[in-house]
């Protein structure tokens, strides 16, 4: 019978170090792609000259645009709120819904911030989702409408929602539960509305809908 050997336990530990190194940057590197894609056009090079014809066309178009916005009927579309709407497509896997994110940006003269990007990540049976920012005297009012395609087994309350927001210096704050208001309509499909107020100078908000082991988070960057 062979002699029994004690197992050798490897107890070496390695410290994970943070490496001080600059990120890739011009001129050595060129940026090929980024996500989120900046929606703001790059600042034009002052030395470059735009052909006068193009500049003239742009001027005419901008005057025309202003005329359209000035129309009372159209103006309603542009004032009041920014809306992001998303459509959902059910896939075969249970509880997984692929959400097509579309960023519909409507600028508004009454909102000092502009929604520049949205993302959705999903693991819930959410049929429809709509988010609105509305300006208030004290900040930005966030409204999130969620429509579930099934009647949930548990009552949906404010505990099912979490809202975090960030300032430009990366400081994160969580909206207190007392400042979150959730209402629902007792009908099929189930509709829920979340209301929360964010500071006017917040630059990013993460709204999470937590339901059992499933969660949906929506991130909005503002600037």
């Amino acid at each position: 019978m062979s002699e029994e050997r004690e197992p050798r336990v490897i107890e070496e530990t390695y410290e994970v170090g943070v490496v001080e190194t600059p990120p890739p940057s011009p001129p050595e590197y060129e940026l090929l792609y980024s996500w989120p894609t900046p929606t703001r056009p790059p600042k034009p090079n002052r030395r470059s000259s735009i052909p006068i014809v193009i500049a003239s066309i742009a001027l005419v178009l901008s005057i025309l645009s202003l005329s359209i916005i000035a129309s009372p009927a159209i103006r309603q579309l542009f004032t009041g709120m920014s809306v992001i709407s998303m459509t959902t497509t059910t896939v075969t896997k249970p509880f997984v819904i692929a959400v097509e994110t579309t960023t519909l940006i409507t600028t508004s003269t009454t909102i000092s911030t502009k929604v520049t990007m949205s993302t959705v990540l999903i693991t819930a049976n959410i049929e429809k989702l709509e988010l609105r920012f509305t300006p208030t005297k004290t900040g930005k009012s966030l409204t999130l409408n969620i429509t579930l395609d099934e009647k949930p087994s548990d009552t949906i309350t404010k505990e099912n929602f979490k809202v975090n927001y960030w300032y430009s210096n990366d400081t994160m704050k969580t909206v207190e539960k007392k400042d979150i208001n959730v209402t629902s309509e007792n009908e099929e499909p189930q509709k829920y509305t979340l209301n929360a107020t964010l500071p006017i100078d917040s630059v990013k908000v993460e709204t999470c809908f937590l339901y059992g082991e499933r969660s949906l988070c929506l991130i909005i960057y503002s600037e």
Partner: protein
Amino acid sequence: MRWHIYKIHTFDYVIEGIFKECEKTLPNEASGYLIGMFSIWNGKHFILIDNYIPVESHSTEYYGEMDITSIGEALRKFMKSFGDTKHLIIGWYHSHPGYGIFISDIDLRTQTTFFTQPFHVALVVDPINREYGFFKTSDNRKSILRASFAIWRKRV
């Protein structure tokens, strides 16, 4: 450029290489490790991914499981090629051939079980639709979120 708005920085050869690896296994899923550094610059943390190691997996179109022998081989490759104190296994990648960029329940479980460090990320690649996206566990560790990234190419 406000580089710090992007949490992840990587290079064209990394993304292109991973796409090629994922195309090789079509119609099945592919997976592997992301190699890089947890970096800091001007007081801001970021993740720099400069390489990857493919891992063979037992996979179907909708499911992939890394082969244990291949994991060992990948770790040996990592130690041999990146055995410095800077490089880490920064996360993992896997493909969703033709069914888009999202994190499934199984992916979420993989991420929250095996990739628990603040620098750990997941890359999902759809080689058929030519789409990809990075994901990172949220601070409360209850959900996983899309992570911002920048792809760079070295000028010649």
